């Protein structure tokens, strides 16, 4: 862990926000191509102590993309709906756009989480977790808090582990020889 100076923070936020957007774009590629996320990042999940049978992501009800046009102008594409047609999104990818926000459904074994994730900040909003115990009296509060915290942390553990895996891939030689070509082929289809 390194010392991060406060004035570096906003500079770093802007300089490296593309990493989060690329991560979401890559995740969309994994989802669309039915790539087994649990399997490809098996060792990372094991290291993170995530012990489960399956981890499945699905695109939820919205996805937003952004394309920098080079002259400080930005083209924004937003696709919404319960079963959104993603062709426009793929067309935008062909033009060089990246995913900036998406609504995701995460299934870990039988449990399901729904949330929006923003690439540049990795913020999670509108997070809905699996059903947990009801609070009927003051004596239930601590138990309910701990159960909810466990379920909130689970989504961060999975997303962070996958993000770490992506970053390791992103700096590897295989990224340019294997992964980016796979994404390119998918976009071209």
């Amino acid at each position: 862990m390194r010392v991060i100076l406060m004035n570096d923070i906003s500079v770093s936020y802007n300089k490296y926000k593309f990493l989060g957007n690329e991560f979401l774009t890559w995740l969309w590629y994994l989802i669309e191509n039915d790539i087994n996320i649990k399997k490809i990042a098996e060792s990372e999940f094991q290291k993170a102590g995530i012990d489960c049978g399956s981890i499945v992501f699905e695109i939820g009800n919205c996805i937003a993309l952004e394309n920098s046009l080079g002259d400080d102008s930005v083209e924004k594409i937003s696709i919404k709906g319960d079963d959104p047609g993603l062709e426009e999104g793929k067309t935008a990818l062909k033009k060089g756009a990246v995913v900036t926000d998406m609504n995701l459904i995460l299934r870990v074994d039988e449990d399901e989480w729904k949330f929006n994730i923003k690439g540049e900040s990795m913020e999670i909003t509108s997070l809905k977790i699996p059903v947990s115990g009801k609070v009927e009296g003051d004596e239930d509060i601590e138990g309910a808090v701990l159960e909810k915290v466990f379920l909130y942390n689970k989504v961060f553990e999975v997303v962070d582990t996958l993000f770490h895996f992506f970053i390791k891939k992103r700096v590897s030689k295989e990224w340019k020889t294997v992964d980016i070509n796979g994404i390119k082929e998918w976009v071209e289809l």
Partner: protein
Amino acid sequence: MGLLSSSVSIARYRVDGKIEENVMEIIHAGLKQNAITTIEDEYAEVTMGWTPFESNFNPDFEKFTFTFGDFFLFSFRIDKKSVPSKIIQKHVSIEIEKKLKEEGRQFISKNEKKEIRESITDKLMSQMPSTPNIYDVLWNHESQKVLFFSTQKAANEELETLFSKSFKLRLIRLFPFTIVESSDSFSDEERDMVLNLVPANVNRGKVVAGDSNE
């Protein structure tokens, strides 16, 4: 939206540093000293401070706990007053009319109008009750992580300031760069390679990637 809500938005932080001794006493003192005041300042536009998770309107940290299992959990309350501009406009117009009539004048100068507006705003502000906004803060002291149950920019900025004032610890927001910097999963070499990355574009079928790691 609080921790127990059915839908939540969460900003994440790493705590830069750790309290090594008398942890409970120091955190208890930080919360108590910076708890939201129970006496409303009628002229203050914004009042903010800590309050117990289980008692948002009675900030009594002697009576209510801030420990839940291995976590510290409390709430950050921001009470804000605001008077809708149309109400101010209405009262200013009434006051101007009254002044013109009382003094038999036809015209009010710009400065006089400004004074009337300021005095009306102060008066209405003092009469207006403040609206409380409550955001939960979950602190895992061991892993030095904080979950803040709001992604609103202003609330996050105020949290960072009050947290630092209360506990003498800095909060570092977790986003792609700081996630990499804060994680033990990466070697120094990998971190250096991340620093040299530039955006990769799948642009009209051509891969545009000019990382300086090459």
